[in-house]
């Protein structure tokens, strides 16, 4: 397994869920922008599951040395790369913040996903699981830089899924709603709609095993977004979501 965004709580929960369910990986490759932090998790799964892993430094905001990724192959890729950034209220016109949101969630992520997609295409097998967000369904005033970057990612994944279909490679787009992680700590999220990393991992694993194309976490978000998507624009533009 290849993991992008290795310090994400959801990514780590997903890795543990796979291992707990008996999945076997010769090696797990952790691509990480903070390898030291990832060491802790690598040690953890070694103790808990005897799982061998390799940590490969990769920071989307810096130049990527693709040579270090050449020998990394696997039939399963999980990507939790993401950056929420500042909300509209706090940093809409903060260019550095904007650039980072767009880069980490889409612009600099796509070439890396492409790199691994190409490998899977040539082997004619594999699954890519990538975390987008419900925020990508519709730009809303409170965080539309993030929302638009995720919208771009969702469209990319949909196109990639289409392209790779007859090459026997699956692409699963995961759309989390609210999640209880460090990224959202302190935000007033309705607990009934919020998934813990463990719950999210369980849902994603199920969707992966059932070869789904799109998975909402928690599933209720599929209904919420159905409604949100269909609110006419002349009404939506007045809302304060």
């Amino acid at each position: 397994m290849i993991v992008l965004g290795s310090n994400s709580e959801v990514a780590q929960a997903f890795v543990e869920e796979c291992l707990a369910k008996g999945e076997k990986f010769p090696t797990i490759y952790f691509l990480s922008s903070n390898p030291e932090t990832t060491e802790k998790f690598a040690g953890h799964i070694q103790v808990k599951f005897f799982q061998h892993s390799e940590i490969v430094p990769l920071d989307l905001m810096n130049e990527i040395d693709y040579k270090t990724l050449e020998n990394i192959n696997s039939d399963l890729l999980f990507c939790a790369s993401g950056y929420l950034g500042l909300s509209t209220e706090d940093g809409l016109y903060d260019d550095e913040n904007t650039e980072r949101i767009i880069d980490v969630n889409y612009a600099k992520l796509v070439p890396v996903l492409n790199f691994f997609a190409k490998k899977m295409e040539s082997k004619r097998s594999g699954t890519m699981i990538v975390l987008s967000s419900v925020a990508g369904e519709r730009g809303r005033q409170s965080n539309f830089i993030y929302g638009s970057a995720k919208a771009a990612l969702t469209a990319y994944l949909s196109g990639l899924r289409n392209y790779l279909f007859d090459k026997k490679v699956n692409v699963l787009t995961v759309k989390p709603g609210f999640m209880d992680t460090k990224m959202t700590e302190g935000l007033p999220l309705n607990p009934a709609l919020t998934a813990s990393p463990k719950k999210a991992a369980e849902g994603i694993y199920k969707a992966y095993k059932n070869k789904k194309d799109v998975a909402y976490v928690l599933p209720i978000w599929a209904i919420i977004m159905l409604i949100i998507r269909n609110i006419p624009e002349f009404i939506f533009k007045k809302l304060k979501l």
Partner: protein
Amino acid sequence: MKPNFIQKVTNWGNFPVVEKEMRSDDSVSKIKKFVRENNEVIARGNGRCYGDASLGEHIFSTKRLNKFTSFDRLNGVIECESGVLLSEVLEISVPQGYFLYVTPGTKYISVGGAIASDVHGKNHHAEGCFSEYVIEFKLMNENAEVMTCSREENSDKFWATIGGMGLTGIILSAKFKLKNIESSYIRQESIKAENLDEVFRLFDESEDWTYNVAWIDCFQKGKNLGRSILMRGEHALKAELTSNLQKKPLKLKEKFKPTIPFYFPGFVLNSLSIKIFNFLFYNKQTKKQLNNFIDYETFFYPLDVINNWNKIYGKSGFIQYQMVIPKENGKEGMRQILDTIAKSGNGSFLAVLKLFGKNNPQAYNSFPVEGYTLALDFKVNKGLKKLVDQLDTIVDDFGGRIYLTKDSMSRSSLTNYLQNVDSSKFVSLQHKRIVNNN
């Protein structure tokens, strides 16, 4: 949206409920920042204590400090972060032939919590408290420095922190020993005792057993006062098991866990329903003595089987009352306590009675003293404070004290026994209440 870290927090008894700032992180630098920027910080593990322990103005939750660092399978030594639960330790240790030396009645407590409470189990008389097997731990102190504490290094801090209820700092990680087991089963003997005298006698006779506990029906009065079932056990050796069980001696029990999905309305648990439950519990064992083999989950963690069993008590919650009375007059003290409880009509399902052995004098903040300890639940209601007061008086008269991990409203004379824990940096609501004599 500015992050707002203030949230409703409560422990296992759902009493009291407070609204305080609570943060959680696994980065040492972020934890340092939290400690530096705040006074009245208190660490919190899984919140399985009762009352107002681990509640404070600025609560640090160790839930994200949940990684294992190492497991020395040869010597049975585990090293992990303080938020790792004992249940998670067992998941990896049992299949490898190791069990916790000391475990309380639930496995859903954190390693940090086990140290801060210096928890005890059914084997205190034989094996002591959790701290006996702790080799070292890393503590973040008042100056936001990380100290390694052991019997050899920073030993002052080591002993102050053991049983110190988090008042010396935040435990970040720990290294501790596990015991060898041949199977995940317990050879158990359950013996019915008609009254208190009989159960005391059985405890004395069971000295050589590793695990001893008695479940008492605290609604019984008169000649049936202290009617109970004593359960004693040993880890089953592989050779003792039936051939069927011998095939997989270290099997983990399958996890079907019913959940209590919502708070039961207040009237469900009342003295009548509890009396009926207790009656059935005592009488379901028809023989005087029953010997069998049971899995460790059922023996050690009968309540853990039901998720959220605390909701059975309803929204107003409940308190746990646990005291220890020194052995010399322990029997008379217990008699008076049980008598008072039975007369009050207030009671829990089952009260748990244990006989503590001598505690390690180095662990001066640790709760157990050689004597009898009784633990039981009381639903929160109007007459409760008066009852607790009556019981406190008896405990006081007999020179006993109250377990801080359970305490919510006992008098300070019974709870003010911690030493070397005064710091403006680490303060819990419980400590404030005790020190201010509220």
